[in-house]
């Protein structure tokens, strides 16, 4: 089985699915000739041609809106937002046109929107955001967020095959830092959580880059489970409640801003449906409600660190 970086796995998944399904095509800024700002589509235009690897005008609303049009006449567009932050320019098309179409009109909108998310490398306020929660709150949009190369490929393929709008949150800071074994060919990963490390005394629930931070933070602690959500919509409630039942103590980690982040929904779910299994308060570790700052000491101070997560776990274990 080949070993790939997280980024290579995304490329591989996209390439394999494009080979497998001629309806699939990519559209985004600088993805064709240039191969993409992060080189995800490097070389694609040579294999698939400019029609299927489309360099679009600088128009996020246009990218999402035209993707909707292409999808309802039978194509499978995979849109790239150059940075997830720019999805705000396409918010209206995504939330009001794509998200609500099936509920209102019974018409499927099978689009995929790739969002390079997250911070940790001095990207500053407009290149480091985690916008998942904005869209968790909008009915009709699915959201996946892989943490491993294997899942990155499998979830991208699942997203493309899904008949609904799916946001694919690929964490930039994992692109070249994380390597793993990735199956060749095409395979689809289900939109459900997975246990990254097993344990029975406490569970850390998180997704994306924070999965790796959490694993590192709890390496030396005994009995700590790490649950990688992998999918935010649909949210794997069963897996969450199973882990609460087994571990009784929960730390929820968000790299996104704390207020109403995905972790807030997880915490609310646990408070309501996992109450009788709790042996301690549901603790959250998240970025405070500030724009992500640029200078390293400021950025490191706000993003959840290995130390902060470890500290929260140690305290809760002792509770």
């Amino acid at each position, binding site marked *: 089985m080949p070993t790939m970086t997280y980024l290579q796995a995304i490329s591989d998944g996209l390439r394999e699915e494009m080979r497998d399904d001629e309806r699939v095509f990519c559209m985004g800024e600088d993805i064709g000739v240039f191969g993409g700002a992060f080189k995800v589509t490097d070389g694609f235009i040579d294999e698939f041609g400019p029609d299927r690897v489309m360099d679009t005008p600088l128009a996020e609303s246009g990218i999402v809106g035209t993707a909707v049009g292409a999808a309802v006449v039978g194509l499978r567009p995979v849109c790239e937002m150059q940075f997830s932050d720019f999805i705000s320019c396409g918010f209206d098309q995504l939330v009001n046109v794509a998200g609500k179409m099936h509920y209102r009109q019974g018409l499927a909108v099978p689009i995929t929107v790739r969002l390079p998310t997250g911070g940790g490398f001095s990207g500053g306020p407009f290149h480091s955001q985690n916008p998942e929660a904005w869209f968790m709150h909008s009915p009709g949009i699915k959201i996946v967020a892989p943490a491993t190369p294997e899942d990155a490929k499998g979830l991208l393929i699942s997203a493309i095959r899904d008949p609904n709008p799916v946001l694919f949150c690929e964490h930039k800071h994992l692109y*070249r830092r994380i390597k793993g074994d990735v199956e060749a060919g095409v395979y689809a990963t289900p939109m459900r959580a997975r246990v990254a490390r097993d344990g029975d*005394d406490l569970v850390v629930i998180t997704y994306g880059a924070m999965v790796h931070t959490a694993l590192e933070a709890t390496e030396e602690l005994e009995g700590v489970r790490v649950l990688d959500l992998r999918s935010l919509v649909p949210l794997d409630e069963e897996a969450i409640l199973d882990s609460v039942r087994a571990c009784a103590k929960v730390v929820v980690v968000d790299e996104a801003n704390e207020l109403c982040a995905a972790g807030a929904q997880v915490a609310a779910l646990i408070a309501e449906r996992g109450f009788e299994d709790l042996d301690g308060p549901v603790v959250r570790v998240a970025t*405070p409600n500030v724009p992500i700052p640029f200078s390293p*000491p400021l950025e490191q101070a706000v993003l959840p660190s290995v130390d902060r997560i470890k500290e929260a776990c140690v305290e809760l274990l002792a509770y």
Partner: protein
Amino acid sequence: MPQMGVSVAEGTVAEWRKQPGDRVEADEPICVISTDKIDTDVPAPASGVLVEILVPEGETVDVGTVLARIEVEGSEALGVGRWALEDGTDAKPNGGKRYSPVVARMAAQHDLDLEAIKGTGRQGRVTKKDVLAFLEHADEAPMHIESPYRPEPEPQSPTPKAQSPKPGALSRMRRSIGEHMKRSLETAATCTTWIEADMSRIEAGREQLGLTALPLVARCAIAALREHPQLNAWLEGEAYTVHDAVHLGIAVSLGDEGLIVPVIHDAQELSAEGLGRRIKDAAKRARSGELRPDEVRGGTFTITNPGQYGSIMATPVINQPQVAILDLEAVVKRPVVIDDAIAIRPMTIFGLSWDHRALDGVLAAQFLASLRRHVEAWDGG
């Protein structure tokens, strides 16, 4: 190795523009780094002297790796500002104890007294682990009323079920037993003394051995009889004989037919397990009518154990010509005072009927105290 670009994880030192010993000025190019994107000059972070090159030309290292050392005049400790976490986790002062939802649920499920469980969590909080640990060393099933005696499985007895007696008539066996009882009460000066005992260790011990409590209590009774041999005796008219060996009679119910007392001879040589096996076997054969005559003769002390129905005290009748009989009734969980605190313990009341012609109250009480001592100190022996 500086981070050049968002997704760059490593870089190669293409060229050192300065050598060890050279002076460098801040922002002056000190080396050239090559990444998969571009080649870039790296400016020196401070003014000083290049002391040591750690990564030679041509080598590729991860971002963050120290490339070289510069001796700088004066150094600045860069404090990494850590976002001050709100410290809101001190437990609020609270008069009563608080239990978490899972602990409360488990307590309700298993009918546990949380006050009796030691808490190892913060400020003595009882945690889920504490409850699990407690349960591991206690019984699963609630122990509210429990007799040490376990009824044997229903015998496929060839013994025909007794016909309901014709109105006004008792069965032959019943009459025989009745005569024995009447004679005993008429002959002996029968008194009864009771003592309470904490059966915790017996309960733990019997579970460990896979037995009922009866053989364990029997073992304790034998030990007590060794200490007070006067109770292991016969009184026939004027002749009072103390025996060395303990031939232990165990009363076995035969249902409507009445009861019979098979004797385990030389019971003092048996361990609790041995006693258990013999008692079980005797009871089985008693019910199937296979007891031989010598198996129901010669007993020097008798234990009766009807506690499975919940009765707590009784006034047993001495089995002639013995001078004492020990009664085991139900084991009931009660609140008791230990070290001026209330704890829940499985308690029972041992009753000893004794013949005042041969014994007196003090002796009876001492025997019971010994019995209690052995029971409460049970450690498997």
